[in-house]
Structure formats: structure tokens, C-alpha cells
């Protein structure tokens, strides 16, 4: 009986091998035969509720939902352009915003887009209070003036056009669909107005979109019928998939391989400035980093060129303060620290540490190779100043928890990335450097009332006098750079890989790693 069993399983294994050997896999040909766009991503899509989503769901949501206003790609004349709203006005005091809605738009459940739907969408997001709902904090009241006119009354002046273009928390959805609740969304349903509808979703594995025939923009020959998001954690596999044509789009491949892929005629490499940057907060509440001279010394001790050229392979630029290159509010005229160990030694000596002689802990996200390598080269450099740097990988939550628990005993350098919820310098400056009673994201515990006042004032002007606001933001950054509450490491570039037969791709850093499939043709 067991002999037989053994033989049977052996046979099955053999058969499997034979079958496998005889069928080469024809993924490429098949993928092109269907009118399918395959986006291979590196991590899961956790949340599909449009009131809650706040991470890489954005690549899905932007194809399914639409906001009132879109933020434009860099190089455009205006910052924003019409989405579901065709035009908008703001009162002189910046306290009342009126949006005029597009006509003839329907949600995927067939109900029409109305001012009431907009009001209910945003109110649901605010009431749920999750995800990026805080972007609506300035809003006191939403009124449906008529069927296609919405009025927002604010409690303090704020740039509601920018807020409405947020990549998170600004979606307009069918209030009827929303009544089904969060779980319903997460089962693979949606209530958007966008060109595609969610067809199915397998948690942690894939998500499939299908064309919404009644999309207000209409459909033309050659646009994609189906969009598939596949989750493939392994960069090696993603690379193999884009090379083999099993993927039409992917990202986050080893920087060392960019050139090889660029040489591949089947793959188109798109490189552009992102709105994400890497910083290392200095713990300004803990000696010796409470001394500005030490912080400046440490800023001079960072080998920026090595970081940019050797670690990042040139696919990043050294930061000028916290607002990333290419974004409004950024200025290339702002000063930068350069790698200058002599200057660092002088400053350390002034501060009373001529031979270094202290230890620092650098915490970073477990498994993040860039943060790790950034630490490794810093470690070697600081060793020359007699400073010992310990690299401590931690989960984000643990790292954060440590920083929030007790500043006096927290890590010395907290390394993290920042990207904007909606595109304003205030997002960077307020969150990371505005003083806080209890630390939240000001993880260097920087406290400077002058700075606070300056950026608050700039924010209030953003909706009405953007030029003045930008000046104030730049002025505030100058202050920061002088005080050196953080290492301003680099502004990252995004590197996207597309099959070269895909046309129409325009990267937009305001919506991180998003591909607007509606715009594409094969």
C-alpha cells in the first residue's frame, strides 16, 4: 500500500516536471494580445476606502476616483488644473471658496455627480477622522449652493485649491456607495467617477481595474481596457518581469541596473525629480546635539558627494533645506552644507569636543538599504572626528515610539523620508519643524517661535498671495539651515520603468508613482 503510494506521488512529481519542461511560458505575447496594462508594484495596497487611504493605494485611487482639482506636473503654467470642478473662486480674505462642478459626470454606480455628493464625500472623510482627513481641518462648513456649486467656509485662511488636489483624502465618491461601509470598499468595490472601476482584488496579491464605459472624458481607440496591479516584493523578479514584458510598468529596481535597463530597447527608463526627500533629525534636546555648533559640525561631516554619486548612483540631488527640488517653495539659492571635516573640527572644538569622544545612535527603518548605506558612510566619516556612530535598524513604529517616549533618552539621529500630503512647503515645514507640545513628527524637537510664526503666516497667504507665501517659506528655510536641526540629505529622483511601446506617460511627482492609465496608448 505504501509502496504504491510512493510510486504514485513520484509519478505525479515526474509528470509535473515533464509538463513544466514542455511548456515555455508565453506571458509576453499573451499580455500584449489583451488590451491590458500591467503595473507591478513592490508593496501591498492596504486600504480602498477613499476616506481613509493614505499610502501607496494612491496608484489605484487616481485611476478610479477624481478630486475637485488636480495638481499639475512640474513645468505647467498653473499649479493646479480642473478635476471634477471646472472653475473655482476664493474670497479676498481667503476664507470662502466656491467650486463649480463639471456637468454630465456620473459615479460608477450610475448616480450623478452633484454638489450634495461632494459635500457628503468630504464630510464623511472629516467625520471618520482617519487617514489624511486632517487636510480639511480649516473647513468649517460645506454648502451645496446649487446642484453644481459647492461652497466651503473656512475657519482660517488656507489654500483650499491645493488641499482639494491632495493625493490622499480628497476623493469625491458616491455617497450611496459609501453607505456600504469600509469593509465593502475593501472587498474590491468603489464609488468613484474615474476612468476605471475596481473589478476584483485579492488581498496582498493583485488588483484588477476595468474600464468605466460612461466615463465623462469618453473613450478613444487604443486606450487600455484593463489595468492589473501586481504585487511583487522581490526587485529581482520585478526587473525580470519588465525585461520579459510581463510587466508594463515597474519601479524600485537596483540603481546599479538602471543603465543596463536603459540600454534595453524594450524598456523605457523615465527619471524625474520626486517630492520625497531623506532627512536625519538631530535630537536637539539631548547633549551634545542640543548645541547648534555640534549640529553644524555634524552637518559638515556628512560626505554628501559619496551619498549622491556612489550610494544613490547620481539618482538624487543634495537637498537645499527640507523642501524638495522642483516643488514650489524650494530654492536652489539656499545654502548647503558641504563635506568639510576641517570646518567640522573647528566647530566641535568651539563646542568643547575637540576630539569628538561621544557616541551617537542612528535609527532607521529595518531593511531600508538606502538609509543603511547612508549610515554606513556617515559612520566611517564620523570615526575620523572621534565620534562613534551606531546603526540601529528598527521597525518604523518602534523607531517612532522611541522618539516619542522621552526626548532626553531618545535616539540621536532619526532617519526618515518625507513626502507631501498635498503639495505645499507648509506640509514639510510645519510637520517636521513647527514646535509641538507633544512630539509627533517634529522628531528633532526643534523649537523656534520665530520660525513658527513665519511659516504660519506664509500658510495663511498661500491661498491668496502665493508669491509672498513662497518668499516667506524660503526665508524660514534659511533659518532652519542655520540652526541645523536635521541633516538635509537628498531629494530623491523617481525612476520608472515602462515597456517602450507604451506612449503618453507623463510623470507627476505630486501623486507618487502614479500612472494615469487613461492617458496611455500602446
Amino acid at each position, binding site marked *: 500500500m505504501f509502496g504504491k503510494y510512493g510510486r504514485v506521488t513520484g509519478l505525479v512529481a515526474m509528470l509535473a516536471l515533464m509538463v513544466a519542461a514542455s511548456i515555455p*511560458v508565453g506571458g509576453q505575447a499573451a499580455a500584449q494580445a489583451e488590451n491590458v496594462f500591467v503595473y507591478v508594484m513592490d508593496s501591498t495596497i492596504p486600504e480602498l476606502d477613499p476616506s481613509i487611504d493614505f499610502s501607496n493605494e494612491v496608484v489605484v485611487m487616481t485611476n478610479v476616483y477624481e478630486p475637485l482639482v488636480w495638481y499639475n506636473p512640474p513645468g505647467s503654467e498653473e499649479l493646479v488644473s480642473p478635476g471634477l470642478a471646472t472653475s473655482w473662486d476664493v474670497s479676498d480674505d481667503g476664507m470662502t471658496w466656491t467650486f463649480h462642478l463639471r456637468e454630465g459626470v456620473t459615479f460608477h454606480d450610475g448616480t450623478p455627480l452633484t454638489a450634495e455628493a461632494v459635500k457628503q464625500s468630504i464630510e464623511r472623510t472629516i467625520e471618520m477622522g482617519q487617514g489624511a482627513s486632517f487636510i480639511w481641518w480649516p473647513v468649517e462648513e460645506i454648502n451645496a449652493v446649487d446642484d453644481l456649486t459647492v461652497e466651503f467656509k473656512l475657519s482660517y485662511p488656507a489654500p483650499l485649491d491645493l488641499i482639494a488636489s491632495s493625493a490622499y483624502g480628497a476623493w469625491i465618491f458616491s455617497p450611496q456607495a459609501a453607505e456600504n461601509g469600509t469593509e465593502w470598499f475593501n472587498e474590491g468595490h468603489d464609488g468613484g467617477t474615474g476612468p476605471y472601476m475596481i473589478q476584483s482584488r485579492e488581498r496582498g496579491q493583485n488588483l484588477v481595474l476595468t474600464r468605466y464605459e460612461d466615463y465623462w472624458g469618453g473613450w478613444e481607440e487604443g486606450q487600455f481596457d484593463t489595468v492589473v496591479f501586481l*504585487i511583487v516584493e522581490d526587485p529581482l523578479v520585478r526587473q525580470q518581469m519588465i525585461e520579459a514584458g510581463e510587466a508594463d510598468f515597474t519601479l524600485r529596481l537596483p540603481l546599479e541596473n538602471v543603465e543596463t535597463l536603459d540600454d534595453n530597447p524594450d524598456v523605457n527608463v523615465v527619471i524625474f525629480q520626486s517630492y520625497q526627500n531623506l532627512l536625519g533629525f538631530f535630537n536637539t534636546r539631548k547633549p551634545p546635539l542640543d548645541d547648534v555648533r555640534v549640529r553644524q559640525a555634524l552637518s559638515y561631516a556628512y560626505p554628501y558627494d559619496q551619498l549622491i554619486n556612489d550610494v544613490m548612483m547620481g539618482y538624487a540631488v543634495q537637498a537645499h533645506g527640507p523642501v524638495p527640488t522642483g516643488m514650489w517653495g524650494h530654492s536652489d539659492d539656499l545654502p548647503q552644507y558641504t563635506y568639510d571635516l576641517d570646518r567640522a573640527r573647528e566647530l566641535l572644538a568651539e563646542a568643547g569636543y575637540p576630539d569628538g569622544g561621544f557616541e551617537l545612535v542612528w535609527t532607521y527603518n529595518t531593511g531600508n538599504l538606502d538609509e543603511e548605506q547612508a549610515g554606513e558612510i556617515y559612520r566611517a566619516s564620523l570615526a575620523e572626528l572621534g565620534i562613534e556612530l551606531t546603526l540601529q535598524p528598527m521597525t518604523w513604529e518602534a523607531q517612532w515610539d522611541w522618539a516619542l517616549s522621552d526626548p532626553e533618552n531618545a535616539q540621536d539621529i532619526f532617519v526618515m523620508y518625507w513626502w507631501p500630503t498635498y503639495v505645499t512647503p507648509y506640509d514639510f515645514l510645519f510637520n517636521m519643524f513647527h514646535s509641538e507640545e507633544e512630539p509627533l513628527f517634529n522628531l528633532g524637537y526643534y523649537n523656534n517661535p520665530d520660525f513658527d510664526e513665519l511659516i504660519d503666516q506664509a500658510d495663511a497667504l498661500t491661498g491668496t498671495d502665493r508669491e509672498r507665501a513662497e518668499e516667506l517659506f524660503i526665508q524660514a528655510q534659511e533659518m532652519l539651515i542655520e540652526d541645523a536641526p536635521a541633516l538635509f540629505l537628498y531629494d530623491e529622483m523617481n525612476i520608472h520603468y515602462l515597456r517602450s511601446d507604451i506612449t503618453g506617460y507623463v510623470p507627476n511627482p505630486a501623486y507618487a508613482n502614479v500612472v494615469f492609465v487613461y492617458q496611455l496608448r500602446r
Partner: protein
Amino acid sequence: MPRWEYLIRRLILSVLVLLGVTVITFTISRVVPSNPAALWVGPRPTQEQISRAREILGLDKPLPVQYIRYISALLQGDFGVSVRTHQPILTDLRTYLPATLELVIAAMLIALGIGLPLGVLAGAYKGTLVDAIARLIAVACVSMPTFWLALLFQLIFFSNLHWLPVSGRLSTVIKLTHPIEQVTGFYLIDSALAGDWELFRDALVHLILPAFTLSTYALGLTIRMTRSSMVEVLQERYITTARAAGLPEREIFFKFALKNAIVPTLTVLGLSFVYSLTGAILIEVIFSWHGLGTYVTEAVLAVDFPVIIAVTIIVTVFYVFINLALDWFQAILDPRVTLG
């Protein structure tokens, strides 16, 4: 034959082991430096959102109260929700568990299908070339870092030869054109039930590389274990009796001897099976096979304890029942064994 009181006693003990495991996990979950509330609220929370999350998660209550709340929900079949994704864990498990089971069972069948005959032959022809080769394969299999082997497989079978896919459970196109009805969650079985052979074939070719990679360690163990039990059993007098009665060697090895020798092999396979439920993490990641391993690794890396506890419980249940099944099976195979 197994007795009922034995079964009941074992079940009660199993429940105690399960409770013990939940207590340990639960305790670990509260001493590990993490911030479940922060995890709950997502990337850019406000202070308000955090304190609300603490209430929702019951973190403001004393530890025993939290534990009792958890256990009583569990008894009603509620594993709770993931702190990180807010998804009901039960729903997640329904996707991930079958994926992992399909992979692990395939791997175990490969280990059994190749390892058992090889081990029997090696034991039967101890000291010969067959034996030497089998032992070499076995020791190489147990020494092989699977993640490394997976890389080599990828490079050879996908990048160079283009024979086998390396990612996921189905190709994209097949997935789109062949909607699959989830009956068991095992693609091979579901597609066979539906009579969709194209889907079946696609699922099969996707299964081959990960299953073979995962099977290596179990394969090595199976060969070694079967071989040494066979060597031992073949020295028994009753084998000489069988030979003296003129029975063919094949039957002696694969039936007379194997029935005596198979229990240790099944035991290691059973334990490998349980181990692989979460131990397949690396293989799951490398082959984008989204199963229990990936699920729990992500949970562990984010310190998402409800998920960790739930998976631990599932795995413990498997462990307990597989042990029970093994004992039972041994009693069926060997009438001398009495349970109790």
C-alpha cells in the same frame, strides 16, 4: 485501535497548549517596544487620532482585561482585525492560508514522492553507489540555504531558460481570462473542479519552482530518515523470513520493510509541514507567493500583534492536530502501538 478517552485527553491538553501559546504571544505583544496605536492610525496621524486608536484597541485597559477580551472574541470565532491594515484577520486568512497550504502540500508531496523511494533504495542497497548518491543528495538538500537556491532557480529557469514563471500563482492574462471560483482556495483543485485545464496548467507551472525549492529541506530529511529506518528494519529477522519465503525484493523493500520504517519519515514530514507554514517566508517573498509566511512576516516587521497571534494559533492548531494524526496513523500502521 485508538481509544476515545485518549483522544479526549489529548484534545484537552491541546487546548491547554493553545492557551499557553496565546498567553505567551499576548505577553510578548505587550512587552515588545511598539506602538499599536500608531500602527492603527497609519502614516501621518494626529495626536487625537492616536488617543482614539488607543481606546479602540483597548490599550488603555489593564493587560489581563485585554487578554480576556481577546480570548472571548476568539471563542466566538473572531480573530479581530489587523492593526496595520484594519482588515478582518479571518478574511485575510481565507486568502493566505490556502495559498500556503497549496504550496506546502505540493512541496511535501515532492519530498515524499522523491525522497521515500530514494531513501528506501539507499537503505536497501546500503553501501552501494545508489546509497552514496542518495546520501549526497540528502545532505546537500538539508544544507542548502533555500533563499540562495531560490535565486539560482530564478536565474536558471526564468531569466536564462524562460521555462518557468517565478512570480505569483497565475499569469496575469490567465487570471483575467479565467475567473476562478474559490471553492477550496487551492488553484489546482479549484481549476480541476471547474474543468478548466488551461488554468490548471498555468497554476501548475507557477507552482513548480517554489514547491521544489521549498521541498529541498524536507526532501533531504525524508531521504535520511527513510534510509536509516530502512537500514534498521532490514536487519530484522522477519525480513530474512520474507526472503526465505522467496518474496521479491521490491515487495520486501516497499511493503514489508517500509510499513515498519515509514513512521519516523512521516513524523519528520509532518513537522516540516508545520514548520513550512510560516517557514516558507523567504520562498514566498522571492516567488511572490502571497501566503501565510509573507502575511505574518509583514505583521512581525510591523509588530502587528493580532495578526501574529492569529497565525500562531493557526500554526499551533496544525501542529497539535498533525501530531495527533501522526500518533493515530502510527497506531493504525503498527498494531502493537497503543495510544494512552
